[in-house]
């Protein structure tokens, strides 16, 4: 019933807002492919615009695949972390012959999500310096009790457990971001590893991570693949590089990474925003790489709130009608782009990303006009409610970013506070209800691990117990009881990807106290909740249908035979 109401609500919203992207327009489906780094945001956005009748198909098959498909003309847009034209493994990724421009879509931090426990308790406050991260992912640091890790973590006694680095097996923007950083900051170690893996040095940036057989590395396809692998309960000792949102989604912690100022920081929205103040954006409008990023300033950003592996993700949009791209598609794509550059940015933080600053939103909106068929983006940028915007053009999010506490300083004993998806949701127990009730529907690891949050809230200061002992069901009950006693306003969400991320949303808030009010209401919420209540029914219906499919045909045929015999 709520679902039936959704169009009306959407219509009312449209009427009241009046600035909805091209209301009452007819849209045609648009297809895209690419990055899984930013796919959590893209998936949320494209679900949001469904209410306007836009159908955006997106396959998160990896940045390299997205760029290649765009080049081959099989998709209308691609999303990628790195631009065309980079040299990878001695081969230059040539730009496509069709016209195209880049447009930033969202910022985020490449996080190091890990699964580690000590004495049955999950470790949630690991800190790593750049050298150690490089050492882990180049196979020189192989055990969690390595003195280099102990030096970063004076408050932790880590076991003599093997470190299992989980890397991407497909061509990926996450790998490209990570290897760009390693090549820039720890070139020697990276080149040594690369050479051992049979690549020519200097290795530089690469999209496909080289692995050496027998080193104990695990390679999995896609961000979902690596995050899903680390999030499997049994895979203790694993660590991977993946966008922060995947850690929130799966409920696992991320390592705080040491920045230039000597502080260990988490890739929260505000820390990423601070870090990216150091990014150098190509502002030469004539350059084919207009708006692309040079991140070396981010790596060396001296602000102590900087997350060093912050970066922007880009959409590649066509500027000419060829390869099946029509003005009608351009119209839809333009409307979608105006949506995510403006309104969509509000959700970035909740999802585990960081919103774009005003200059990039403005530049992006200008780029929208270059898409054939797109309406000129007559978006009132002041109404975007982007948390980074301010009257004087400075980045509010970065300006108000909380300073890291002294326990995050290098050499000091580390903070106890859990990170990433393992952090307890602040106060609002309704969130854990969301996680808890979701468990029975059995969305793989999400439900169970989401409950970790619930467990944490319950036991307080014992972050590990939930995650390491319970399974999905017990977690679920945890969550429900919590919800029963709590205020339980239920941000409960059912939509596969969005659900857990929304549940994890306030986690981001916990680290940026004061920013919590920024958590925006989402127009899609009604639909999300409704699908949550429908799903048990749908499951039952599907089961019945299945049983009917199996049982009815033989019964009918037997009945028919019996009748024949009688006759």
């Amino acid at each position: 019933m709520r679902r039936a109401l959704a169009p009306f609500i959407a219509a009312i919203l449209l009427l009241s807002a009046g600035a909805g992207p091209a209301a009452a327009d007819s849209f045609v489906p648009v297809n895209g492919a690419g990055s899984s780094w930013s796919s959590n945001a893209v998936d949320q956005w494209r679900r949001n615009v469904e209410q306007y009748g836009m159908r955006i198909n997106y396959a998160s098959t990896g940045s390299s695949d997205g760029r290649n498909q765009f080049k081959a003309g099989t998709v209308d847009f691609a999303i990628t972390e790195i631009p065309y034209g980079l040299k990878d493994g001695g081969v230059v990724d040539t730009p496509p012959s069709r016209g195209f421009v880049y447009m930033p879509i969202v910022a985020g931090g490449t996080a190091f999500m890990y699964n580690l426990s000590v004495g049955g308790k999950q470790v949630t406050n690991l800190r790593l310096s750049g050298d150690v991260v490089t050492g882990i992912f180049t196979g020189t640091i192989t055990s969690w009790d390595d003195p280099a890790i102990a030096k970063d973590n004076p408050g932790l006694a880590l076991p003599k457990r093997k470190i299992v680095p989980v890397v991407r097996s497909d061509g990926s923007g996450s790998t490209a971001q990570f290897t760009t950083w390693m090549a820039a900051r720890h070139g020697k170690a990276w080149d040594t590893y690369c050479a051992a893996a049979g690549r020519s040095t200097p290795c530089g940036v690469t999209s496909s991570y080289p692995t050496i057989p027998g080193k104990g590395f695990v390679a999995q396809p896609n961000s979902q693949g690596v995050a899903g692998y680390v999030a499997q309960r049994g895979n203790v000792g694993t660590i991977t590089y993946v966008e922060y949102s995947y850690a929130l989604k799966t409920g696992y912690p991320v390592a705080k990474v040491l920045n230039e100022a000597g502080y260990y920081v988490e890739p929260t929205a505000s820390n990423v925003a601070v870090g990216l103040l150091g990014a150098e954006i190509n502002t030469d409008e004539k350059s084919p790489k207009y708006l692309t990023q040079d991140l070396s300033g981010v790596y060396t950003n001296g602000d102590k709130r900087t997350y060093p592996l912050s970066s922007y993700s880009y959409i590649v949009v066509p500027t000419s009608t060829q390869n099946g791209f029509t003005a009608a598609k351009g119209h839809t794509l333009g409307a979608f782009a105006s949506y995510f550059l403006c309104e969509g940015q509000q959700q970035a933080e909740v999802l585990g990303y960081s919103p774009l600053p005003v200059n990039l939103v403005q530049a992006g909106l200008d780029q929208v006009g270059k898409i054939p068929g797109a309406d000129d983006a007559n978006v009132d940028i002041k109404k975007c409610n982007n948390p980074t915007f301010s009257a004087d053009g400075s980045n509010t999010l970065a300006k108000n970013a909380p300073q890291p506490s002294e326990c995050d300083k290098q050499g000091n004993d580390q903070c106890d506070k859990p990170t990433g998806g393992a952090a307890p949701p602040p106060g609002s127990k309704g969130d854990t209800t969301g996680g808890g009730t979701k468990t029975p529907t059995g969305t793989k690891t999400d439900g169970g691990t989401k409950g970790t949050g619930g467990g944490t809230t319950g036991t307080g200061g014992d972050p590990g117990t939930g995650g390491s002992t319970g399974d999905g069901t017990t977690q679920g009950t945890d969550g429900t009881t919590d919800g029963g006693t709590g205020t339980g306003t239920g941000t409960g969400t059912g939509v596969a990807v969005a659900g857990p991320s929304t549940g994890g949303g306030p986690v981001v808030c916990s680290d940026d106290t004061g920013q919590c009010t920024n958590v925006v209401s989402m127009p899609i919420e009604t639909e999300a909740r409704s699908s949550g209540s429908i799903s048990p029914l749908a499951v039952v219906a599907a089961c019945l249908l299945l049983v009917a499919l199996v049982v009815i045909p033989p019964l009918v045929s037997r009945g028919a035979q019996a009748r024949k015999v009688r006759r």
Partner: protein
Amino acid sequence: MSATIEAPRTIPPAAPDEPDVPRRLGTRRSASDKAFRAVLLTSGAAVLAIMGFVGAFLLLRAWDALSQAGWSFLTTQAWEPDSGNFGIAAILVGTILIATVAVVVAVPLALGVALYISEYAPTRIKQSLVSIVDLMAAIPSVVFGLWGFFFLQGRITDLARWLSTTFGWFPPFQVPGSDPSDPLATATVYTSSTFIAGLVVAMMIAPVVASIMREVFTQAPVGEREGALALGSTRWGMIRRVVLPYGKGGIIGGTMLGLGRALGETIAVYMIISPVFAIQWHVLANGGSSVSSLIALRYGESTPFGMSALMAAGLALFLMTLVINFAASSVVARSRSGASS
């Protein structure tokens, strides 16, 4: 009796100086017959032609890579086409190992299912069982992949650990890097392995194999079954002496069909395996590879030359599958039920 044999002799003999020429037999086919034959001929030829074209296409596209790599293509254990260092030694072995695990698991399972359905199951539930098995064959492979990755993998590691500690003396069951005496040893060495990928593939091929076997078993001649039973054999004796020998062709044919599918299975393997490009004999250990999962993994992001290398790998798989299928069909053709499978 003899009269009928004599009968042809009564035809007046031909002139003595002309050699004996057999009478020409001809049939005038009706228009519908001709049309039918033409349709059959075309479709038969089309299958061959399509297969030929696939082979030709693969060879054409693979030529670049093959001509650069030469014979080392068959012996190199690496996959870095853009650096010119690539070969299929490791991935072909990986493919065969995954398929072997799958067949070893699936065939006994399918044999049991087929025998139960065709010989033991009460008539009441037989049809339902057949439907269930067919339904299982209709589950998309990506679902099996998801199941394998998110459900099976975390739970099967204990079995893998037990196998490797108990049967570790058998080299393929060894897991390098594992230490059963270390309580902190990571379970990841048992994940993403050839074994798990093979198990998932086994689940996918078992229903296909089972339905072929069942089909053949039900055709075992009733007379012979009754004969065996009349001579006092038990039901199991009858199955052993009549059904199984009769159905040998079906068992082999089904197995080969399953093997063919296992060799080519892509997405489930892609999701589970952690690709390594060195020959991985240790089926329980992390890492493996298969041709089709490699193609799925890399085709989207390859340079033209990398694509050519992938095509060469595809060609190798194509040829291997052809050889296996021809071998299987020659075995099948010699068995009694061969014609039906």
